[in-house]
């Protein structure tokens, strides 16, 4: 087993393990902090795929931006510990069966499918290619994404509007 494999397995374990903690933890604070490790783990996985810019953006935006916002949000809620986050209807048997079926089918698909592989490639910077794609073949999605953000801004403005200001 090479060093790369060891690093990969470690990253995968940390990513999945912390994601599990996010879901099962009974304290919001623990959930948010373990989300930190999930985000970092995903960034490292991007590096393994040779997506350097994406890894950087993942750290900047998810860890630096979204996570900090989440922390602020969590700090402002009053009940931080011992939350009971289960739904009113709890169906352990049906839930387990469906989860198991999804897990088995997705893992089988991952391992047994004949993927279209491109083989090993040299690690090279991707920023230039991404920039060119944004201004050529992916110009329309790039612009529509900004419409999406505009809508999100309008929605946020609507949510925080004072009640009296009709």
């Amino acid at each position, binding site marked *: 087993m090479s060093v790369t494999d060891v690093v990969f397995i470690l990253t995968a374990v940390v990513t999945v393990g912390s994601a599990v903690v996010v879901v099962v933890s009974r304290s919001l604070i623990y959930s948010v902090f373990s989300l930190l490790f999930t985000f970092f783990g995903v960034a490292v996985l991007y590096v393994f795929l040779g997506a350097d810019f994406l890894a950087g953006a993942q750290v900047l935006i998810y860890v630096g931006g979204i996570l900090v916002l989440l922390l602020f949000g969590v700090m402002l809620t009053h009940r931080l510990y011992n939350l009971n986050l289960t739904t009113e209807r709890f169906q352990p048997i049906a839930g387990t069966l469906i989860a198991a079926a999804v897990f088995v*089918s*997705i893992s*089988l*698909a991952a391992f*047994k*499918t*004949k*993927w*279209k592989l*491109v083989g090993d490639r040299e690690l090279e910077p991707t920023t230039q290619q991404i920039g060119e794609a944004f201004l*050529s*073949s*992916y*110009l*329309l*999605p790039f612009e*529509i*994404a900004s*419409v*999406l953000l*505009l*809508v*999100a801004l*309008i*929605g946020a*403005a*609507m*949510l925080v*509007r004072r*009640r009296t*200001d*009709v």
Partner: protein
Amino acid sequence: MNLGNLDSLTFFYPELILLGGILLVVISDIALKGLRNRVNPLLTLAALLLALFCTLQTDHGSAMTLFEGMLALDNFALFFKVFLLVAGILVLLGSLHSEELASVHRGEFHALLLAVTLGMLLMANSAHLVMLYLSLELVSLTSYIMVGYLRSDRLSNEASMKYILFGAVSTGAMLYGFSLLYGMTGSLDLFAIRDALLAQEVVGFNQVTLLLVVVLTTAGFGFKTAAVPFHFWCPDVYTGAPTPVTAFLSVAPKAAGFAILVRFFLSGLSQPAGEQWRFISGVDWPLVLIVVSVLTMTLGNIAALTQNNLKRMLAYSSIAHAGYILMGAVLLTGSGLKAMLVYLFVYLFMNLGAFFVVTVIFNSEKTFELQDYNGMFRRSPFLAIAMSIFLLSLIGIPPFAGFLGKLYIFGAVIDQGLYWFAVVGALNAAVAAFYYMRIMKHMILENDDRPPTPLRISTLNRALLILLLVPNIVLIVFWAPIDRWTANSITLFGGL
């Protein structure tokens, strides 16, 4: 023909007009403090009408792709663009005199309506998985905001929250399906995906994986069209949202969802063969969708039987109609696709009409309960008769347009020899008749002891009701133009 970014702009006027409309409405909302409540609806209406005009004027010759293969411009997309813009205009007019929206600031509502229409137009055109996801997300995000528009209303908030949660999960599933598809074909372009799948001949475990892709992506499209088992959000969201928004959700994003579903499955996972399509061997996606269709109409109709809240009942009814519409999409024939378009077109007028009557009654009665509709015929004969026509149309009873839709759909199903499928649909239509008739019974036959006070309807609302009634009554006679239009509209880029 594939057009580059600059050349494509000539065929992109409707979308550009809507985009300009959004910006103008946002600016006028800030700049024109005193006049904005008059100017904004006019601006929105002007943008929608102008976009509709440009869409009708579009002469693209043969089918082609725009923006480096991001969008496909074909008759199929044009049909949906006209449909969605008409739906947008009708919903805008219906929202103007709605008491539910009177108490809140309206400026953003118009900007959001334009944004969601823009998103839906792009959905109808998308031929690339990135564009498909992005337009779907634009529509979803805007819908979440519109559903939660009544901020001080607890039900509206709850509806928005549920919508977001279900939306996030189903979009996640859909994206996972896309990623599997990308892994197998190495492409995000629908036509390239089809070519790759045909070239490698899907065999062995890849067949199973591709079926998994079908199931996962159906989750995303099923969420937008409110098909069982991805319908759980639908009753609560439809009940909590302001009624004009509910009317909108029950027609426009549903239609856009069907457009995207048909394009994904027909362009990506099947190949044209003469007068019809063949699914890629070993991946029987129509069977998956037939099961979804049967479940959708049966569950929707049965659940609607016991509802006493009008909005909730119409929510389940719209789920059931998604099942009928899906019947046309799974046949893989030109006549099936045409039947689906006819059904959607008549569904627009009958369903918007029914929801619009609910809006008008809420304006003066402040209630959605069936009990409170008692004696409506004595209070406003016009409203009761209008509602009855919309409901009879929804059932599919002959003199009204709904019959035309059912006729085309069941005809196309029988043409393919799927008799059991047609029987299931017909039985469902019979079940549906029961709860639609129940509304009519309450409005016309049951009276309470109170003296019948006349119901006030504003002139605009009355005019709009008549506008919605006309197609329901005359289409059965003047069906030839619709027949021609839909027959022309089944041309998809890269097929038939």
